[in-house]
């Protein structure tokens, strides 16, 4: 079973993401900000990370950069799932090493398709 780390400061968003992914057979670990996400990623081997951008303590882009510096997460797909939709922010995400950028609100079927694609 693939393990996915879902990082978002909104409990509602984490619950929605977790429900969709678990309903498709994935195991989901949750974190409420970038700093906690980094701790969880250190403690557990995750196959995919889905993170929000604007969060307290550590934002999504900083989390992506920090994960890319870790040997175990150099090749792990990382998706930004955020309300930020500017081309500038997406370019920053790409430069930081993110695999993809999804703008909220997300469609569950689309999220699952993207997850399947990046986990292949």
């Amino acid at each position, binding site marked *: 079973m693939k393990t996915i780390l879902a990082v978002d400061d*909104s409990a*509602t*968003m984490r*619950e*929605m993401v977790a*429900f*969709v992914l*678990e*309903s498709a057979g994935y195991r989901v670990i949750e974190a409420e900000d970038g700093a906690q996400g980094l701790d969880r990623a250190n403690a557990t081997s995750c196959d995919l990370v889905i993170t929000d951008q*604007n969060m307290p303590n550590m934002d999504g882009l900083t989390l992506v950069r920090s994960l890319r510096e870790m040997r175990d997460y150099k090749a792990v797909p990382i998706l930004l799932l955020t*309300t*930020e*939709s*500017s081309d500038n922010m*997406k370019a920053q*995400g*790409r430069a930081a090493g*993110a*695999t*993809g*950028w*999804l*703008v*909220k*609100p*997300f*469609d*569950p*079927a*689309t999220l699952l398709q*993207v997850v399947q*694609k*990046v986990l292949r």
Partner: protein
Amino acid sequence: MKAQQAMGTLDAGEKAQAADLLVTVASTLNERLGVTAVELARSQALLKEASDEMLVAFRGAADRLVAAQKIDCADRPEKPEYTVVLDHLYRAVQHLQSHDLVSQLIEAQKHRVQKMRDKLTEALSLSHPPDARAMLDCIVAGIAHMDQDVHAPRAESMQSGSVDLF
């Protein structure tokens, strides 16, 4: 800018009158923004209350579905009725995200209102002794910096957002 330039050409009596007017404008605006801040907070609280109730209903349905699937999965893993219920729950997932998006929008407005209120309070503190020019500069700066550090979602509807794979 025009008002700031005009301020430089006033005599002492006119400057005092201008300062009085600015005090009235700043204090009235600050008071109205205070009411707006309270109403924004109320909107957020009402939205949270409604969303929490919807989430309880959502969890109830989702938990029942997962439990039923576990019981039945041995003999019929792909029951069509489960797929129908899951489709309904997925639709709910998309629209339950409205709480998060609208709450972020309200938060952005609260942030703007608070920044303006801080500047108006600062401008009012410059009225003893009255300094119309400094008050006006302070109010203009408040307006100019209202949008700084504001992260408002750009979504126009609850239709799903874009997907970019790099």
